[in-house]
Structure formats: structure tokens, C-alpha cells
């Protein structure tokens, strides 16, 4: 996979147009796979472009895996899936060394983390030991096995799913693990019309899932777009807004664990991605505001019932930068 180290600020119109077209097609693919959930799809794209990892939490059968697979298919690259179970070992995720009778040496067998897109299905069913094996991979995009370091793909992207209902035999993700995720999204039930359409579409199709289509993004294109996103400008006042928001999470009486600096960095990057998707080269307070829910819900240790209320309270407490403060 080729890498583009610096997407120029003055990117050519054609290049930018191609990128937008690719993202647009990816959006269409996801919307096709997950009907009536365009807002969720938009957040998934934000997460993807901000180079973060995604945690999908919802009831069974709502399309978490479908969405993950559709995304993996759309962005191309190597795709791997790990069905997390209690007997899944860390080595099953990262890979392990085996003795080769042929070469009379230990050879390293790469695990699913070496893919470009990893779907960790029902991650909370894996043991903490196995979950921890993903820590290094998600944060630093590398794994260390037997004192040997193996770099992962630069666009390594984890989509983990978990079921909040059936908690028997599960291991809740630790805070350290949750902090590695950029967002937590819930899909929710589709609307009436969307379910009708889904039923109509299913008529005549024998398999449960459609066949994998071609990727919408070329090799290295995602990384280039991610670099473009990173260069989206953000005003000092908005950065100050972000810091004030983070400070409020740290002193809020309902929150055990405030937003970490890493969480703050991720929040800024997702806001940049949101601005890029809106075809702007600058971030507005709305971008920060819009991604606040998925960003904060994954890392503030809140119940899903009260998360919305607390996040709303936090956003209401801190006044966003206003036009009147802008300097001419």
C-alpha cells in the first residue's frame, strides 16, 4: 500500500474531486447496506476518515456486522474478522510463532490484526487478556510478539461490535481499551418505511448477504484523505472550546473519568473529518458539537441511559465560540 506523506493544502481540484467521489460512493454503499441510518453512516465515515476505531454497540440483529462488512468491502484492502469468544487467545488475534519442520526455525503466523480492516465481532465476549492484546495494535498500530515488533497497516481500522443485552459470560471492556476507540455508535431499529424496503429487497435473494462488490477506494486513497482531514484548519477559539469541554468532563459530578488528552485529540480529529465531509477547510463549533455524542459516550464511563443527558448538559454548560468573538 502506497502512502502519501503530505496531502498538499492546495490539492488539485481533480484530486480532491476524486477523493470526494470515492467517499460519496462509500457512503452510498453503506446506506445501501444499512437503510435509513444515514446519520450513523455519516459518523462511521467520520470515524474512518479521522483514522479512529469504531465500537458498534446495539442489540442483536440490527446490522452491526453487516455495516462493518460493508465498510470493509467499500474501502478495500485486506479484511479480517475475529469472532470473539471466551476461548479466543491473544495469539489468535496478534499471531504466533510456530516451529517449522521444513526450515527448522520458528516462523511467525500473522493474526487478523495484520489486516487493513479488522472486524472484532462481539468483542466483549473475549477475555480481558485477549482484549488487551488489541491495546497496542489499536493505539500504536503495531504488535509485539516474543519481543519482536511487527508494524501493522497504516490504515489499520478496527470495527468492534458488542451486545449490551446479553451480558452473561461477557467481559466489559476496560476504560483503557475503550479510550482507544474513537466512537461508540448505536444503530437502532430502522423506521417503518426502511424496514418495508428491506423486506422488498430481500425477496428473491437466496443468501443472507449479498456478494462482496468491488472496493470504492483505490489503494492509498484512504490514507491520502486522512492526511487531508488532518490538515483541515481549526481556529484557536474552537480549540479553546474543546479544552473547556474537556475540563468540564473532568469536574462533572456524574463522570468518574474525564476526557483524556488522547480523547481530546481524537475529538479534534473527528471534528476535522466532519468539516472535511461538509466540504469545508475549517472546523466550526457545529462540527465539535455534532461528534460530541459518539466521542464522549465511549469514554466517559456513563450508563447508556444517562449518557445523552450528561453529554447534553456538558455541551450546554460551555458556550461555544461566537461570531461576536471573531477577530477581523
Amino acid at each position, binding site marked *: 500500500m502506497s502512502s502519501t506523506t503530505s496531502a498538499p493544502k492546495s490539492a488539485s481540484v481533480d484530486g480532491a474531486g476524486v477523493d470526494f467521489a470515492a467517499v460519496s460512493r462509500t457512503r452510498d454503499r453503506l446506506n445501501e447496506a444499512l437503510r435509513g441510518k444515514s446519520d450513523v453512516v455519516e459518523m462511521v465515515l467520520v470515524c474512518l476518515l479521522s483514522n479512529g476505531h469504531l465500537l458498534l454497540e446495539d442489540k442483536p440483529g440490527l446490522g452491526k456486522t453487516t455495516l462493518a462488512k460493508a465498510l470493509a468491502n467499500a474501502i478495500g484492502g485486506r479484511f479480517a474478522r475475529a469472532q470473539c469468544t471466551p476461548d479466543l487467545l491473544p495469539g489468535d488475534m496478534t499471531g504466533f510463532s510456530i516451529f517449522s519442520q521444513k526450515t527448522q526455525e520458528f516462523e511467525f503466523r500473522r493474526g487478523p490484526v495484520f489486516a487493513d480492516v479488522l472486524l472484532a465481532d462481539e468483542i466483549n465476549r473475549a477475555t480481558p487478556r485477549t482484549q488487551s492484546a488489541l491495546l497496542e495494535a489499536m493505539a500504536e498500530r503495531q504488535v509485539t510478539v516474543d519481543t519482536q515488533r511487527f508494524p501493522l497497516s497504516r490504515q489499520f481500522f478496527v470495527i468492534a461490535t458488542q451486545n449490551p443485552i446479553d451480558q452473561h459470560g461477557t467481559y466489559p471492556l476496560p476504560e483503557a481499551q475503550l479510550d482507544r476507540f474513537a466512537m461508540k455508535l448505536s444503530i437502532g431499529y430502522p423506521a417503518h418505511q426502511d424496514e418495508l424496503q428491506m423486506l422488498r429487497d430481500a425477496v428473491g435473494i437466496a443468501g443472507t448477504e449479498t456478494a462482496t462488490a468491488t472496493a470504492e477506494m483505490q489503494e492509498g486513497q484512504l490514507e491520502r484523505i486522512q492526511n487531508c482531514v488532518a490538515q483541515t484548519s481549526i481556529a484557536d477559539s474552537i480549540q479553546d472550546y474543546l479544552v473547556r469541554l474537556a475540563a468540564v468532563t473532568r469536574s462533572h459530578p456524574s463522570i468518574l473519568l474525564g476526557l483524556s488528552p488522547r480523547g481530546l485529540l481524537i475529538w479534534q480529529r473527528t471534528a476535522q473529518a466532519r468539516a472535511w465531509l461538509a466540504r469545508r*477547510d475549517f472546523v*466550526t463549533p457545529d462540527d465539535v458539537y455534532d461528534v460530541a455524542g459518539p466521542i464522549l459516550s465511549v469514554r466517559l464511563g456513563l450508563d447508556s441511559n444517562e449518557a445523552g443527558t450528561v453529554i447534553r448538559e456538558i455541551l450546554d454548560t460551555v458556550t461555544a465560540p461566537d461570531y461576536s468573538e471573531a477577530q477581523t
Partner: protein
Amino acid sequence: MSVNPAVDRPVVSGRSPAEPAGTPGAGSSGAGRVVRAAVHRRAHVSAGDSWRQSSLTLHLLTLALAVMASAILLVTEADGGRRPWRIVIEVLITAGVTTGLALLVRKKSIDLPDPPFILPLLVMVVVASIIQEPLQRWFLATGRPFEMMIMYSQKNLMLALGICGIRAGCQRLCVIIGVFLTIFCAVISGDRTVHWLIAAFGVMAIAWLVESYWDTLRKRLLHTDERRIPRGWLATAMAIPLLLLLVSSSAGSSLISAVEGFLPGSGGTGESDPFARSGVNDGDALVAGTNNIRSFGPIEDAPFAEDDKPSLYDVVNYKFEEAARKIGRQDRSVALPAEMLAEVRQKLARSQQAARQFSTLRREAKRDPRQIRNLDSHAMFYVAGRVPLHLRMELYDVFDGIDWYPEEPVEGLNGMAMVTLKKRPWLRVPCSSRAFDLFAHSETHAIKVVNLRTNVIPCPPDTRGVHIDRVDQPEMYGAYKQGLVKMNRDALPELTPIQILSERIDFSRLDQEAPGWFRIAPEQSRMELPAGWHMRAVRDLAEKWTAGIPRGWKQIEAVRRALQENYQLDPQARTADDCEFPVGHFLLRSKRGPEYLFASSAAVMLRSLGYTTRLVSGFYVRPEKYDAARRHTPVHAGDTHFWCEVSPGGGTWLTVEAAPGFEVLGPLPGFWQRVWQGVQQVLRVVRRHWLAASCGVAALVAAFARRRVLADAVRTVWWTLRPAGSVRARVLQTMHLLDCRLRYAGEPRERGVTLRRWLRTRPSVAAVSPALRDFAELADWAAFSRSGDTPSEPPVAERGRAVPSAGTIPATSISPEECCRCIRQEVTLQKCRRVLAEARQQRNRSLS
């Protein structure tokens, strides 16, 4: 769930108290080391103590207040005696030195929880300030008055506290002393510069209060809470004292200071200090002594050279013109009993010989300005104390139908004697009977004669004492008439303050009728009336006015009120030379005349009803002439006045002011009386200028009702005329205009909510103009983008909308300038109001 322990204390370590060690992501990325090193140096400052240390802004503001207070004290002490630039230099030096020292102290003591040198420094400053004064008097033979010495020690203490203002406690004490010094200066200084400096001090004090409040908030409250300084309120609070000062300085004394009861009196303790600066309107410098050094001199040093100053009679004749020539065939009809006739005739002869009678029959004469020089421009004398005031100069008791004849002068001191009150010699004037209990309180007025030749001291009614500095021999005084004091010399000493103590009658007590009042056996000479049919008609008129009113003060008031309300004051009106009874002509026919006819009419009518009356001539000290800056009222020749006095008995005389436009000084009003008088004053002004007032009120009401439209019009005009500058500036200006319109329309955009988000929830407003959505994009760009802020950038339309272009103005369907113009023209206040009202109605309908 635990409550965050860091809520009530500030962060003093590198790691936020809310972020425990080992917080994921806090240390590994390096962001957790944010300020640890920076604050490590002050780590030993306890967390509970750091809030007591002030911010640099507040510290400097405190210093500025202290320097301003010290400047006010300097100007006050200089009292116009020093050149302004020297004061400015001294103030600048003070400011520079204190600021430098403050920064040094701040630097040295920032790490110390409680700098040990503060208290010794303060004690040393106070002691040094007090020790300096005797040394200065001893060695340099110069010194300050005692009060200034104390104030200077306080000033030094204030500056020292300001220097040590890193501690919040020192700052507060510094400001308190500054306020005290300012109040002191405001009380003792009449310099206008001081007033302006005090206003500036007030504005700065408000700023200090606000900054202090926000500084405390910043330190004590949740550091994450939203804090925003209310600049609008701050500006308003600062504007109010400035506005008041502006009004008070520009409106003039007649409007602001002439309201009765608010004028300063004299008073004083009589203390004397050779180092005193000028006294507090007291003692030797009582009357405008600041402008003429001679006013400090004792009377024997004052000039007594012969001059052409007018006598009292010149002044009377100047104002009321000469008496008409006596008509030979006129038959005087003085109705006196036979046994008194000889005595009265003798008196009349004496009066006529001395030409001291006052005729109510006067004719127009050509004035010779040379006779009384500068009467209209220079005051004859000045009065300090409450006004309006009637000052008696002559008393008349016998009236023959045309002329009033003065009372017989009394001989000697007539019971007057010198007494010493608070080490000052006072001539005590004997009091008449106090059986009626009419007197409310006594008060002092002071008079300084500058241009009047008379030896009679102008005295207010019910004078009880006279004091002239160092005049302690009773031979210097004499009784002129009952209640009138003269000096045994040709004229009153010029430019020397004469203090007069008098009692004020509480006229409200007269309403409660006592049985003995106005029923004491009358004095014949003050009851006699001319005979003839005119007099009968006058008596009938008086009885008509008082029909049904019980005898007493109410009857007198009825007569006075009838004269004031039904007759017109006309100083130029003259009675025909052949008129036999000018009072009757005035009352029954012309109904207009000068004030002596009002006074004579009141006296005659009250006599006809059986009251003891007399005519008094003197001066009326007009409140509208009160000079607020010098705190005195000048009296000119035109203030010569006649009025009537009526006696309830026992030697007491009550002033009856029958001429319209003149008032009698009552007792000091209480608070609510002052308020009521203020209201009356306003109502009088309104009544006088009813047309202008009505138009003004109507305009104000209309402006208030349409205030939003007016404000919008003003803002729109300002938007149009204002230079646009860059595209970014223009967009932000338009955003401000739009914000104002939305606020005036009753649905303001909340602060921090972008226009795009706001429009999302108000689709009706978004539909007002298609340019709004483009403008929302432009507004976001103008406020939050870092680039592309000059109008010389490539035009937007060329780039199209498909691709975002970094660093330039966002692509909109119309150019930014055009978009701003569309917003101004299409998103009007009226449209916003209409669509928002419709949306509200629709919402209410759907809810119901």
C-alpha cells in the same frame, strides 16, 4: 460516584486534580506534562492560599486607583495655587515609582505565601508621614494643616498598600482609603477639576469592582464554568456617574442647585488654625473668601473711604422710581384718634423732613445709570446660606393712603448685648415672646457687603444674633428698629462677613389655631387705615375673600392667595398721578402693579379685617441666583423688595408674601418634603414649557414604542456608512446586524449557536431569503477560518461548489458582498417579526 474534590480549590499542580494518576492517555502522549514544570517553582504555595494573590491586571488597576486618589488630593491641596503641569509631573512620578515598586514586590513575593515585609512597611510609612510634619514645620517653617497632614499619611499608606497589592487584602484596604480620600476632597474642594477627577475615580472604581469580582470568580469557582465579563452593563454603570456629572456641570446652578433645602448652610465651629488652608466655608473665609484676600481681614483694616456706593434709598428709588409729586388738593385722611393725632403728625413731619417715607404713588422717570454704577452687573452684597430669604432693611407702620411712614427708630441697644459663643463675640438680639411655639430651628446666614452704603445690617426675620469677627464691643452696634441692627458708623464694613443667626418659623404650626393668636390687643398705629369710600370697597373685598374662613392664619393665607392668584405682578405698571388711593385702584381696577402695591394691599386688607400689619422693605434673595460653585447668592439692586408682615401678637411678625413669584423661607424640609419639592419643581418646569414638554413626552413615548425599529434603522445606517474593510469584516458586520434584527424580533440567536444550526430549527426564517444559507456558510468561514480574509482573493463563482478549496472564501452562489447586501435588504426586521410570529402561532395551534 464520588464528588470531585477539586471543585473548590484551584489547580496548583501540573496534573488536574480531576485527573488521577494513571488516567488513560494522560501521560503517555506527553499532554499530561502540560504545566507541571511551570508551576513546580510555586509548589510550596498552599492550595488554599493562592486565591489570596491577585492577578496582575487587578493589581495595576488598584495602583491606578491609588494614583488617581493621590492626584485628587494633590489638586485639592493646591487649590489653584500650583501650576497644573507641576501637578501632572508629580502624579506621573508617583505613578511610575509605585508601578515599578509594585512590579518588584510582585516579582519578589510571588513565591511567598505571606510576605513578611508588608506589615513593617505599612507601619513605617504611617509613622514617617506623621513624623515628617513637625520636622517640616520646625526646620522649613512650612507645614500642612492638621487635616491635610492626616490625609497625606493616609495617602502614603494607600500607595504602600497598592504597592503590596499582590495580596487581595491589601488591595481592598488600598481602595477603601482611596475612596475615603476622594470623599474628603469632594467635601472640602470647590475646584471643578477635582469634580472631574472624582468622576474618573468613580469610573475606575467601578472597573476595579468588576475586575475584582471576576478575579475572585476565576480563582474560587469551577475553573470550567463559563465566565464572561458583561461589558454592556459595565459600560452602562460607568456611563451613569459620568452622565450625572455632565448634567450637573452643564445644567447650571439654577436648575440643579436652587431646589430649596439642598443649599448648603454656613455653620462652623469657630476654630482657628494658623496652618488652616482656607476653612470649610467657615469663619473668616465664609463668603467667597477664596477670590479676594481682603475678605480675610478684620473689619478695622477694611477700606472705608468715601465712595459713590449707593445708599439703600438710592437703591429703592432706582428700582421703583421716584415718588410722584404731592397733589396739593389731596386730602389726607389718616383716621387716628384725637389723642394720638398730635403725636402722629409730629412723626409724619419728621419722616417727611427726612424723606424716609415710602410713597405708593410713583411715576416713571428717566434713569441715570451714572447714579448707581454697575448695579446690574455687580452685586450689592452676597448671602451665604439657604435661600429664598427676605432681608429687612426698613419697617413702615403708618399708612395715609399714599405714603407709608417708617417706624420710629429706637435708641441705644434696646436690650441687645454682647455674649461669647464658642469663643466668638455675638450680639444677642432680644427675642420676642416664645409663647406661641412657632419656631422650628435656628440657622445662620452670612452677608458680605460689597456695594451698598448703609449702616443697617440686612437681617432676616426673627434675627437672634449678629457676629462680625473680632467685633466684641457693644458700642459698635445699635438697635435701628425692632429686630433690626445697625452699626454705629457710616456704613457697613466692606467685604467683611457678617453672620446672622435667625430662627425659622414653622408655618405648618399656624394651621393648628391656638386661642390667643391674632387676638391680642392691636397696636393702633399698625391698625389705622385711611378713610373714604375706597377703603370701604377694599374692606368689602377682603371680607368677600375670607367669607366662611375662621379668623387667624387661614384668613391671612386666603387674602395672600387671592392676591397672588388674581393679580398680576407688573413692575412697570404705574398709577395715575392724581390717584387718591393707589391701593384701591390696584385692588379694584387695574389688578396689576409692582410688588409694593401687593404688599400694601395685603397690609391694608388685613388691617381692614382687624389684623396688626406693617410694611417692610428690604431685599429678596432669589434662589435662582444661587451660585453653586461659590456657594453664595448675589443680591443686586433689582432685588429690592417690599412685603407685608402680620403679627399674631407678642412681638412676633410673620412674613406675608403676597406678590406672585416670591416665596418665604420655611424650615429645613425633611426627606419626603425634598422629594415632593423636587417633583413640584419638575412639574413647574413642565407647566411652564408645556408645549415642548408634551412634544418631548410624545416623542419619547413614540420612540419607546418603536425603539426596536429605530435601533434597527440606526444600525442599518451604520452598517451602510461603515467602511467595510475586508470581506471577513463585512461578513461579521452583517452577522452582527442580523443578530440585532433577530433580537429585536424577539427570537435571538443564542450565543455559541451557529447561524446554520439556528436556521435548522427555524425553517420559517430560513425561507425569508435564499441568501441566508449561503450567508450562514460565509459567517462560519469569517468567524472560524484562519485564511482568505482579503477581498482580493479569487472570486468564488469561478471555483464552483463541487470542491472545497483550502484557504479561500467558501463557494457560495453569490459573491460575499452581494450576499451581505441581500441579508441587509431581504432579512428585514419586519419580515423576521412576521415569520416568527406566524411560526409561534402555528406552534401554539399545534400544541392546543
